[in-house]
Each structure stands twice: as structure tokens, then as C-alpha cells.
């Protein structure tokens, strides 16, 4: 059995960033302590994003096409849209992965991400795609509202010669220390005093796990180059001292840039470290949540040749400031906006039709005519090219990675959209086909004819009556990064 480790990584952080100053300005009347925390910003999902869509985008950031199909896909999150429907199976369909794959959702603890990583590192054969994604909500004016961010990380775990980092040791402990919890069906966490978490949680449980990990691996703490702790910087500094780690090895905790992304966060910080790490560097990664997961990694040579599509750095750079606290509240459902009678529209999904068309809708598979070459969506038995119209001539073609071009657009203030105006238009695909699509993550007034667009997996509609979220792909202008 060869050693295992990380083959690829990718990240996703929503474009929208809410400056903490904006929260403090709006809510300090209720909680003046917010002012002291009003530094940096947090990443917030767009109305059409959730843990599932972010998971798909993080996996796409890994550039999976260069690797063998994974044998397992694990989706870790405390905010999965479905309590009983394999969320991971939606990711498999959206990524167009081979259906001969083991899928599993891991949830119910902020440690789900690192626990999934541990399982994958222990698994014997084949590679595992581990995706951690979270978009937790928080009550207005709560400390969590300041702290939480939304995001996702994906890591392809396996063996072989092409590891970017190999695992040297891994230890876990389980301890039902409940400093916060969220019951089934609740939207917000219930939390207790943070000092208890610090003293009895972080400062005791982490050394309890990390010390034997270092001993097992025979590693001197001082030689560790990067340390990722799941706790505030000051506590992390104390831990360094008590464990003999070099304080300057503490990795960027990304709280200032995007907030604490929950289940995702240790993996997101690890991805950030890997982006800059040199071969030979040793990394200590710790996850926390009713127990501790601790890992030691050693970065290997192939790291020099690997780049995710955008990675953490690229996603952090791709930011757009949310200037309206009220819009943020509305889009996370904290206030109910009157969207008018049009929003009463019954969005029932014909699940039978969704199943028949799963390749088209979830996988964004179109057809390429073998006779004339036209790429078309949806794929139908007769080719759409008026000069061809050949029967049964099309081969499936994935449209999720193609570039499109805006042919026409509008900003529709009449149509219901939780972030009006609804923007949509005709998009030319591969120079031969056309799809009328919604545009997302683009501000009104910025679309232009001819603009290149790329495809994003997003929430299409939400059926509030039946609590069903349906997904499709949307076009977003390609940004220079």
C-alpha cells in the first residue's frame, strides 16, 4: 500500500463580500460590542448559491479532468439543502462524474470536513473527492454574524507518485463538548460563553491530540513550517507556545478576508497554504468540533506544477462589495421582502421530468451534431441547424466548461428575482449554438453584447411550498484575474 495524500485541491468563495463595518454600522445600536470586531469582511453567498452549488464550484476549481475518476465522493457540510436526498449525488451529476462512485454526505459537526479528509486518507484503494462546503446563517447583531463566512474547498485524496502533499500522521478524538449546537430544523446556532470553549476546548483538546501526533510521527514541533489551528489568533499563539511550535508558522486564518467558513475552514486554510508551500514543507492541520482531527502533511515535488483554476487566492481577489446590509439580510431570508404577486408562482418541479432530463439539467450536457458540428442545448433527436436537421446525429457534449458569448440581454424588473433585476439573454455557445440563460453575479448595467461568459452551477428556483430547490447552470461574465 503506497502512501496517501492530496492529489489536487480547489476552492470556492462567493464574490460578494460584506464588510464587517457595514454590519456594525447597521446593528451597533443593538450590540455596541460589534464595533470592536468591525475589521475585514466576510464572504456571503448570492441568493442562488448554497452549500451544494459552492461544492460543485470548488470541485471544478480542482481541474479534475487531469485525474482518474474518483472512487468516492464525500460532501461535508452542516448546511446541506436536503436532509434526505443524497446531496453528494447531485454533485456527481453536476460534475458529470462516472456514476460508479460511492457517495456520502457527512454532516452534523464543524469537524465534518476534516473527518471526511481523515476517512479518505485512511481509505485503501482509489481516490476520494472530499468536498467541504458551508453557508451558515446568523442572527442579526450576533457575534456569529460578524464571524461566519461562506465557502467551499475540494480535495482529491489518493495515492501514487503525483501527490502534492503526503500525510505523515493523523489522529482524532471525539468529545461531546457542546459550546454551540444547532438542532434539526433550526436556522441559527445556540452558543455559550467563548472563554469556556477556549479554556476547556481549544487549549486542552488540541494539545491532547497534537502532542501524541507529533510523537507518533517522530517530528520535532519546531520543524513544522505551517500550522493551521481552528481558533482565534490569540488562542492559536498560546497553543504554539504550549506545543513548542514556531508562532511564525501560523497560517493565515482568512478570517479578515472571508470569515470562518465552518466545516470548510480548515481545508480552505490548507488550500491557501498549499498554494504557496514549497516541497519538503511540513504542515500541521487541526479541525475542531465535538472532538479534534489532527494531521501532519509533508509537501512533495509535484506541488510546483499544480495550480487550481482560481484557488483561494484567485477567489479572494475576485470580490464585489455588498454595500447594503438590508439586501444581505433579505437574501439570507432574515427579512421578508414583498416581492409582489408574481412571486406566488407555483414552482412545483416534475421530479419525473427532472430525472429524464438529469443529464441536460444537472449535468449541462448538450449535443454535438456529428454531421454539421453544431453544439446545441437541449440535445434533441433532430439537429437544430436549419441546413442540417439530421436525425440521431448528436453525441453528448459537456457544456459546463465552454465559453459563451452574450448575444442579447435584458434587465427585467417585472420578473420575480430575489436580487432584482432578473438578468438573462441569449448566449452563443461554441460559435454554433444558442441558449437563452440567466446571468448571475453581474451587476446591472455591466452586460455588453459580445462579452465572454462562463458557466456556473446555481440555484434555478426554490419551491417554497414544497421546500424543493432546483438547480441549473447560469452564465457569468468572465473576469480577468
Amino acid at each position, binding site marked *: 500500500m503506497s502512501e496517501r495524500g492530496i492529489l489536487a485541491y480547489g476552492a470556492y468563495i462567493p464574490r460578494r463580500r460584506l464588510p464587517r463595518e457595514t454590519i456594525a454600522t447597521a446593528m451597533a445600536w443593538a450590540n455596541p460590542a460589534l464595533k470592536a470586531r468591525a475589521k475585514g469582511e466576510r464572504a456571503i453567498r448570492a441568493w442562488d448559491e448554497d452549500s451544494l452549488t459552492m461544492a460543485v464550484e470548488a470541485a471544478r476549481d480542482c481541474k479534475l479532468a487531469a485525474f482518474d475518476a474518483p472512487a468516492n465522493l464525500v460532501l461535508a457540510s452542516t448546511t446541506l439543502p436536503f436532509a434526505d436526498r443524497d446531496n453528494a449525488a447531485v454533485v456527481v451529476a453536476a460534475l458529470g462524474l462516472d456514476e460508479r462512485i460511492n457517495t456520502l454526505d457527512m454532516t452534523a459537526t464543524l469537524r465534518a470536513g476534516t473527518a471526511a479528509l481523515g476517512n479518505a486518507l485512511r481509505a485503501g484503494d482509489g481516490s476520494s473527492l472530499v468536498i467541504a462546503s458551508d453557508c451558515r446563517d446568523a442572527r442579526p447583531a450576533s457575534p456569529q454574524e460578524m464571524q461566519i463566512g461562506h465557502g467551499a474547498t475540494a480535495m482529491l485524496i489518493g495515492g501514487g507518485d503525483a501527490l502534492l502533499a503526503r500525510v505523515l500522521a493523523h489522529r482524532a478524538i471525539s468529545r461531546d463538548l457542546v459550546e454551540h449546537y444547532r438542532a434539526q430544523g433550526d436556522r441559527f446556532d445556540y452558543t455559550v460563553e467563548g472563554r469556556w470553549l477556549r479554556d476547556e476546548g481549544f487549549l486542552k483538546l488540541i494539545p491532547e491530540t497534537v502532542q501524541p501526533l507529533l510523537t507518533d510521527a517522530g517530528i520535532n514541533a519546531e520543524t513544522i513550517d505551517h500550522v493551521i489551528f481552528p481558533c482565534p489568533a490569540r488562542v492559536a499563539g498560546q497553543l504554539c507556545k504550549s506545543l513548542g511550535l514556531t508562532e511564525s508558522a501560523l497560517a493565515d486564518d482568512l478570517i479578515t478576508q472571508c470569515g470562518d467558513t465552518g466545516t470548510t475552514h480548515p481545508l480552505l486554510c490548507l488550500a491557501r497554504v498549499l498554494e504557496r508551500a514549497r516541497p519538503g514543507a511540513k504542515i500541521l492541520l487541526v479541525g475542531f468540533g465535538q472532538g479534534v482531527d489532527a494531521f501532519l502533511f509533508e509537501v512533495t515535488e509535484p506541488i510546483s506544477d499544480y495550480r487550481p483554476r482560481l484557488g483561494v487566492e484567485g477567489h479572494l481577489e475576485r470580490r464585489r462589495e455588498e454595500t447594503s446590509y438590508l439586501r444581505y439580510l433579505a437574501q439570507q431570508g432574515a427579512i421578508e421582502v414583498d416581492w*409582489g*404577486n*408574481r412571486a*406566488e*408562482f*407555483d*414552482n412545483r*418541479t*416534475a421530479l*419525473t*421530468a*427532472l430525472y429524464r*432530463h438529469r443529464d*441536460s*439539467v444537472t449535468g449541462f450536457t448538450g449535443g454535438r451534431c456529428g454531421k454539421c458540428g*453544431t453544439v*446545441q*442545448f*437541449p440535445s*434533441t433527436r433532430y439537429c*437544430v*441547424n*436549419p441546413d442540417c436537421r439530421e436525425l440521431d446525429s448528436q453525441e453528448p457534449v459537456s457544456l459546463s466548461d465552454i465559453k459563451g458569448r452574450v*448575444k*442579447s*440581454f*435584458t*434587465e*427585467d*424588473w*417585472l*420578473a*420575480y*428575482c430575489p436580487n432584482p*433585476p*432578473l438578468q*438573462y*439573454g*441569449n448566449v*452563443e*455557445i461554441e*460559435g*454554433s*449554438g*444558442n*441558449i*437563452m*440563460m*440567466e446571468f448571475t453575479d453581474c451587476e*446591472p448595467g455591466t452586460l455588453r*453584447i*459580445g462579452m465572454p461568459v462562463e458557466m456556473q452551477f446555481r440555484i*434555478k*428556483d426554490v419551491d417554497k411550498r414544497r421546500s424543493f430547490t*432546483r438547480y*441549473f447552470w447560469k452564465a457569468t461574465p468572465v473576469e480577468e484575474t
Partner: protein
Amino acid sequence: MATGIRDKVVILGMGCTRFGERWDAGPDDLMLEAFIEALDDAGIERDQIEAGWLGVFYDEQSVGKSAIPLSMALRLPNIPVTRVENLCATGSEALRGAAYAVASGACDIALALGMEKLKDSGYAGLPERTKGSFDDLWMPSYTAPGAFAQLASAYSTRTGISMDDLKRAMAHVSWKSHQNGALNPKAHLRQAITIEQALNAPMVAHPLGLYDCCGVSDGAACAIVTTPEMARSLGKRDLVAIKALQLAASNGVESGHASWDGSYTLTTRTAAGRAYAEAGIDNPRKQIDLMEVHDCFSITELIVMEDLGLSAPGDAPKDILDGVYDRDGALPCQVDGGLKCFGHPIGASGLRMAYEIYLQLLGRAGDRQLDSPSIGMTHNLGGIPIRNIASVSVFGLAQ
């Protein structure tokens, strides 16, 4: 090659309700109001009608399925009645059914009635309805203004005409229709507006403002058709004959193929070509005296001036601003106010357009009567630019 139906069918009588927010009238009231006027105009007995076609688009909120509501409201003597629906071309489709029945010899007198009761929806604009179980899964949740608005960005790009100049021509389209609608006692919107009002109206779907959008109205229109021989035997002297009725439906090219640039309506071009051939028209701009086109939005009217072969490619804005299509221009368009101001009860609109042409050709158009026109055209565009039905009909005084 089929010879078509030119001059084989004439209009025996027509009726049209006042369009508007008819809080006073339900579907039956609207059908009866149009029918009684048409029956009176035709000068026949109700039982002489041998078949009927009812055009309704939103059956969900007015009459329900089938044409039984027509048969019941009019207490027809158990004749065959059929409900047709072809988006905004529904009224023209009803007329096509009746005209073909007469042209085929299947019956001597047939009825076409289009009706829409929109203002029971409880909100402004067209009611939101499902697009179908598959399309709901992926198509944008578009509205009609949003779908048509895109014509503007694509047209501006194709022709190089700036959006500001285009907006000015679009404002002229609406200004003209408001001028005309003010003269029409049956019109929904009867107040004149200024160009500035049109330009500065609140945005509905960029670049369409409120005055770029037609009225959402209740109403019904009705035609009773027969053969020229039967009409004369019934003592009719001046007859309006159907010269052409043509339809063209999208087959997916606009929505799925890059050859369409989004700036025109493919089906209008096809339907117009067929209609001109059926009617024997080779120079439409010279031969047609007036027309009612599908001005659901100002940009639609603007671009179909080119699709109908009336303005040269890229010249529609200039022709519009030059007043070519004004009531006193070379080729008056929307003399009755159009969809914009007469209103747009969807199932009735095709027949409402025919009603105006009929009145104008017979010299019965009152304050808005044009100087002795002899050929008129109607055009509908049902659906949205990427997926639609175009109908082009030509009417003329029978020789």
C-alpha cells in the same frame, strides 16, 4: 402548389368590445358583446352559423378548456366548436379555422371569436404560468417584456444605431399609437403622451420603459365569414375579402442555433413572404394602405417594419422618426392605437386587428378614418423572439 384562399372568403360581419380593464365583464359578457355586434353587422340569424372557433390563450383563468363556453354563452345549436390557442396569434388562428372551413366548402357560414379575460389575475402584467415541465427546469423565468427587450440590444449591435437613438425611435412608435388611440372610443388607453414621457418612464425590462409596453386588457373580437357568393345572396354590397392568411412557427433555430443574431423575427419574414405571395403583393410598401402589426412592445413594432419588408434593413428607426408609419404618413400603422393603446386581450388581438382593417376598408372608422384604403395587413407575433408564431393576414375590398 396550392393556390391559397385569396378572395374565396369574405367577412360578413364583425364585432369588437371596448378593450380595457373590464371589471364589469366576465368571459361570457365579453364573448357576447363582440358576438352580438358581429351578428347584427352580418344581418343573419344565429342558427345560420354552421361552425365556430374560439381563440383563448389563458384558458386557466377565464373559460377553461375547449370551446364549450362559447357554445354555451351564445346558445349555439350544437354546432361543432373548437378552441384554438397559438399564443398571441390565437385570434388570427381562430379566423384561419373559420376561413378554411368556408374555403373548403365544409360550411357556408363560420364564426371566429377571440377573447381574453386577463384582469382577473390580481396583478399587473401578464399572469405567470408554467412553461412546461422540462422548460421550467432550465429556461430563465422570463417575462414578455424581458424576452422582447433583448431585440433592442441585438438590433443596436447589428445596425450600429446607438441605444439612445433607438430609444428615441421606440418612443416615437409609442407616441404615435397614443395619438391614434386617443381617437378610438373602444381603445383601452385614450390619452396622448409626449416623447419625453415615453423616454423617461420607469424601466420595466431594460431598455423597455412603461410606455414601450402594450396594455394588458380584457376584450373580445369576432368575425363571421362566408363565401362571396353567399354574402351577395344575403344582400351584402361592399365586401371585405381575405387575401391571405399565413402562419409561420419557430422550429428551434432562434433558440438553439447561432445563425440567428437575436435582432429580428425569423418567422415574420417567412409568414410575410408567404402572405404576399398568396395575396399577389409584390411591393408591400406601395400596395398596402394600412396595417396593424404586433406592437406588444415598441421595439417589436420597430424591428418588424424590416421583417415585413417595409423598411430597408437598418432603416426602420429613420422611417419611424420620419413619420412614414404615422396616421398621416405613407403607410399608417396602428391607426386604432394598436396593442399599445387599443389593448392586448391576447386571444382577441388578431381579430381586433382584422376589425380595424375591416372598418377602414368599409369607410366606417369614424374619427380615425383614412382616405379610401383598399388593402390592409395584420401581423401577430405570438410567443417570444426565440420561440414564436408569426401570422400575416391581408384583407382587401372584394372586386
